[in-house]
């Protein structure tokens, strides 16, 4: 599937989301020897005697091949110790490295929540600004693989609830590359959330471009009737919904909420204010969600200026079920987004 981006440059090439991430890692590692990678199976047996081609290179292969170029001191397989490796990531960042740690699936991140919430996120503040913690925690998020309850969480909202963290969720290959570079260059701890359904998607990427700025919206599609903002994969779902809506004569603007913290609230307010209708889509539990956060903030600023209640499309407030028909019913869908958008138009 080819997806629109907001930064198609002259030198753009078609690239998968996965390759865009790998390119960001490569670029940053070549530019700065302090950038090191840690994580379970990220070298994936590379350097252990078996042929290199067979190495895993991460669950989805994002880091495959990096061991060959950077060796065992910069690409480290780790034991299954999410807490320990996250703590080590914090310490390494405090002591001069710029580590990028792969926690595999966001569903495993709770194993390291103390290290994320109490150490990484608070260290700069507690020290009165003496130290920075320049680290990135990459993880794969989301459902659709029938991976069931313990492998399908997104945790977008939990991370965004933590002051001191920056939280990024790219939707397109261009965003993946530009934002991962920005995250590695950033001096604060960044949680970088990669939806599993996106790895094989492709799109135009300017391979010579520098980092994107954190704290901006991605504009995936212009539209005048309703503004739909989605987080990560949900932004692509919103794009599909926009195509359906167009066929019914409704013009939908689609935004990628690619930077959850910092959030471009002013940008959101301007765009939702212009259409007067706003839908926010997030794969994740309904309560205390990013969707409700954004709805509350936008709703406050646009009080009296919106033509309809803000639509929130989230997962059920439930663990993720295994069985395909159950999981499909559980997750946001194009159909649910279409329905929510039409409801803001007074339809359906």
């Amino acid at each position: 599937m080819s997806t629109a981006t907001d930064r198609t440059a002259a030198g753009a090439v078609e690239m998968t989301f996965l390759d865009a991430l790998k390119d960001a890692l490569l670029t940053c590692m070549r530019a700065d020897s302090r950038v090191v990678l840690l994580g379970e199976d990220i070298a994936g047996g590379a350097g252990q005697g078996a042929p290199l081609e067979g190495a895993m290179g991460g669950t989805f292969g994002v880091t495959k091949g990096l061991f060959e170029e950077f060796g065992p001191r910069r690409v480290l397989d780790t034991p299954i110790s999410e807490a320990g490796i996250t703590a080590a990531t914090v310490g390494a960042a405090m002591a001069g490295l710029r580590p990028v740690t792969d926690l595999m699936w966001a569903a495993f991140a709770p194993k390291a929540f103390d290290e994320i919430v109490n150490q990484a996120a608070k260290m700069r503040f507690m020290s009165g600004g003496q130290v920075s913690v320049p680290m990135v925690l990459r993880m794969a998020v989301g459902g659709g693989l029938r991976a069931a309850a313990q492998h399908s969480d997104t945790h977008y909202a939990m991370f965004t609830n933590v002051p001191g963290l920056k939280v990024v969720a790219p939707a397109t290959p261009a965003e993946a590359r530009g934002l991962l570079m920005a995250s590695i260059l950033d001096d604060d701890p960044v949680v970088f959330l990669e939806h599993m359904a996106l790895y094989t998607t492709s799109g135009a990427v300017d391979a010579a471009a520098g980092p994107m700025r954190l704290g901006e919206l991605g504009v995936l599609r212009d539209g005048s009737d309703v503004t739909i903002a989605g987080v990560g994969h949900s932004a692509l779902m919103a794009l599909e919904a926009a195509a359906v809506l167009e066929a019914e004569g409704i013009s939908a603007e689609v935004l990628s909420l690619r930077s959850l913290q910092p959030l471009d609230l002013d940008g959101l307010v301007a765009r939702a204010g212009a259409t007067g209708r706003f839908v926010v889509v997030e794969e994740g539990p309904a309560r205390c969600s990013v969707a409700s956060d954004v709805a509350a903030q936008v709703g406050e600023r646009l009080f009296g200026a919106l033509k309809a209640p803000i639509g929130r499309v989230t997962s059920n407030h439930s663990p993720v079920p295994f069985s395909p028909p159950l999981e499909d019913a559980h997750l946001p869908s194009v159909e649910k987004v279409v329905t929510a958008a039409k409801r803001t138009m007074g339809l359906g």
Partner: protein
Amino acid sequence: MTAPQLPLSELEEAYRRMLTIRLFEDRARREFGKGDMPGFVHSYAGAEAIAAGVCAHLGDADMITSTHRGHGHCLAKGVDIVPMVAELYGRANGLCKGRGGSMHIADFSKGMLGANAIVAGGVGIAVGAALAARTLGDGRVAATFFGDGATSQGVLHESMNLASIWRLPVVFVCENNGWAESTPAAYAVSVPQVSVRAAGYSMPGTTVDASDYEAVHEAARAAVDRARRGEGPSFIEATYSRIGGHYAGDPEGYRSRDDRRAARDADVIARTAAVLAGRGSDSAAITAEVERDVVARLDEAFAAARASAWPDAEGADRYVYSN
């Protein structure tokens, strides 16, 4: 230490059970390849002696917690094949009504407290189950299975300490296959024999070769007896060689040819058949009989599962809360 020989009939029974697990796993892997089984499947092939040898000492009231590699534990604990397979296919009549799948398969009526897709996720739960048993004084014992990779999880350390200070009736069973996905234990585990760590919690620790059923059986007997007597926890490390990759479909490109060959050579099924034959048992006949019987049950179970109804999508968020 060589384990005492089991009575022939008992070893034959164990062989039947292990072969059943192997046949189930080989079939599940094959069926998974057809593409209509959702999610992931991790095969227990090669480890059969561990589940069978431990569960031989447990009754329905006793409790086990399992891993992502949980089919063997189910079968050793007496779980019925038909609702197991239905669960692998996410059907309404599955053990977990399609909510769990392979990685969360559970049958509480048999004391099988669940596969667990969080590495080491079941360990602390078993300690809690043992705490309940001790508190209620009902004589139940808990056993928890986990891999070599799971030994790097802090909660294992915390759980072993808790079990020790409270002298809980729990057996820690490390299924050491030398790999955690693509990461060798030789790289990730900082001690050559994990069982050495038991001394740090004042509990007995032993390492046994899980291609030798009687060795596992004997180590488990000592540990379960000790638990049953109220003397506290034990740690068993059972080594085996992983057959068929980390998950069904794993190309295992990270693993050397030699290591993969070792797996075949150390196979507990072949070895146990040979031991039986050496002791005068007609293991070929037993094999044939079990194969006939189990294959028939599997044919039935897989056909039934595929024909079973999906859960009702309206009920996607049922079973979240009790009320």
